[in-house]
């Protein structure tokens, strides 16, 4: 709405404001780098360690399970990091510290403040997922890799990060600080375990009800396209289906999130 009125010099100053707000987020992340790394690495690292290494060494998982798990963990890291990066600070900034007000009063359209958050959270999510590759090599000894699958891997990474950020924007604007704990446990744990990161979706035919549940979690389509990219011999959902579902989910969540953002930003 407000962007429509912007003239050419207005656009220049809006882009300057946008970059300054982005610089603020990068600066804060940089000055808290160990916290950032611990936050993004620990959870997938332990999943990788226990399911990929410990259980395999003890003989509880089949040979090759680690290679099936790894693409799923890339998906998990991208989605969860995007969501956490955006949702937690947003709930606090809107509901408690009001820190966001200084940015909402910057000479830029309100939607651009939300767009900056999406961009920053997505980039952070992609970096977190990328860090998982050397971590995987370190823990597992080797990770599945196909150069011909890299374009699809990158696409899945971008869509997964955007999905997480969009989910974070929707949650962050809908949840009040008082209910942040309950809502996040209600959303986070099911999201973590129904997103097909630890098992391929087509193999769920023996548990039809769970197959339906997982099909409703958009993260499933990130995991499946990651597998299509890195371990195509494992049965997976066709990548084009994944991309279509993901674009649809991202669009819907963004619309909800932006609506919520405007509602919180302007009375």
């Amino acid at each position: 709405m407000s962007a429509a009125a912007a003239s050419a010099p207005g656009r220049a100053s809006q882009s300057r404001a946008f970059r300054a707000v982005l610089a603020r987020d990068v600066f804060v992340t940089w000055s808290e780098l160990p916290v950032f790394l611990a936050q993004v690495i620990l959870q997938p690292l332990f999943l990788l360690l226990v399911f990929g290494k410990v259980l395999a060494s003890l003989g509880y998982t089949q040979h090759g399970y680690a290679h099936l798990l790894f693409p799923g963990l890339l998906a998990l890291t991208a989605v969860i990091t995007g969501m956490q990066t955006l949702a937690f600070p947003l709930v606090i900034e809107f509901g408690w510290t009001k820190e966001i007000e200084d940015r909402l009063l910057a000479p830029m359209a309100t939607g651009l403040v939300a767009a900056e958050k999406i961009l920053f959270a997505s980039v952070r999510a992609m970096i977190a997922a990328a860090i998982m590759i050397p971590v995987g090599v370190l823990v597992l000894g080797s990770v599945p890799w196909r150069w011909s699958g890299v374009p699809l891997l990158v696409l899945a990474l971008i869509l997964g990060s955007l999905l997480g950020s969009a989910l974070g924007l929707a949650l962050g604007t809908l949840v009040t600080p008082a209910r942040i704990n309950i809502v996040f446990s209600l959303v986070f744990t099911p999201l973590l375990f129904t997103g097909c990161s630890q098992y391929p979706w087509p193999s769920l035919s023996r548990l039809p009800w769970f197959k339906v549940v997982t099909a409703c979690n958009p993260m499933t389509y990130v995991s499946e396209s990651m597998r299509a990219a890195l371990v195509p011999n494992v049965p997976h959902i066709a990548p084009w289906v994944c991309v279509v579902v993901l674009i649809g989910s991202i669009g819907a969540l963004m619309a909800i999130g932006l609506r919520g953002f405007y509602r919180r930003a302007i009375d």
Partner: protein
Amino acid sequence: MPLGRWHAYGLTSSAVSAGSVTEAGAGASTMSAAAVVVDALVKRYPKSPVNAVDGISFTVAPGEVFGLLGPNGAGKTTTVGMLTTRVRPTSGRATVGGIDVAADPVHARGRLAVVPQRSNLDRSISIRRNLTFHAAYHGVPGAEAKARADELLEQFGLRERGDVKPDMFSGGQAQRVMIARALMHQPQVLFLDEPTTGLDPAARLFVWDRLRELRDRGVTLILTTHDMQEAATLADRVGIMDHGKLLSLGTPEALMRSLPGSSTLELTTDARDGDAGEPLLAELSALPDVERVELIHDPATGGQESTLRVRLYVAGEAPQLVAPAAALLARRGQALSGVELGEPTLEDVFIHLTGRTLR
């Protein structure tokens, strides 16, 4: 006469106010050059049966200090919210620095700055970076922002604390940082929401001094307050709000003068033996504009005063009665040993307008 509390001014201090008088109508003739124009502004929140702001209009001239005075819930904060692009008006129009805040909020944000009631400082970064990042949002080049931040930190007594994060700060310090931050992009109009609510007296005086300096530098200030002393001390003009409406608007002096028979003149003179003061009272009540005269008894002396204190309730301007009263006493051979002018406070004006106290 139930006039609430009275604020006494010395003879000299009544002259000070004369310099800052701007008549209410003066702003209207310079609409185009006005810093802020508010025209029939209305805000009704969804599901609310009444308007939070109910059709208010006023104009603020560049360099003016304008106070919105009223109790909590009067609509002051909503009004400021609309002027600062954070609340969308239901109807009416408002401009800040000549820019329509509803039609072009992005440009309007470049011309205004807001100091909120509660700290909204960025807790992840130091005080200095709070200032420099704010400047960057507003497109101030890096080197200039750094120089301005140093200057403002110095001016606000925060030079040594620039590298501290805001969560270590008291309310008064946070308030100072927020004012400094607001000035980083050199706004035309600075909005302050209850700038000293909750501050200790020293912090309050510090903030008042800084705001006076800003006024002297020509920054237009709009402040909301429910503190009549703050409004009377800082504002060139005061708008009194209640239930979303602007009840009255004018200089603090004009508003207080508008109360009928509310100025007073207190005279202290020597008592004659056996004189209870009746003849004197009779002569004083015959002076022009005097509505009522009463003798003030000092409870400490039990009625055996060697001096008499007399209070005159005046319809017009109390200072103009000083000379005739002094002459009258001289004629009677009584020495005048004390003169005190009493003016009604803005709180009295508020009570007169609404029948309620401010708090």
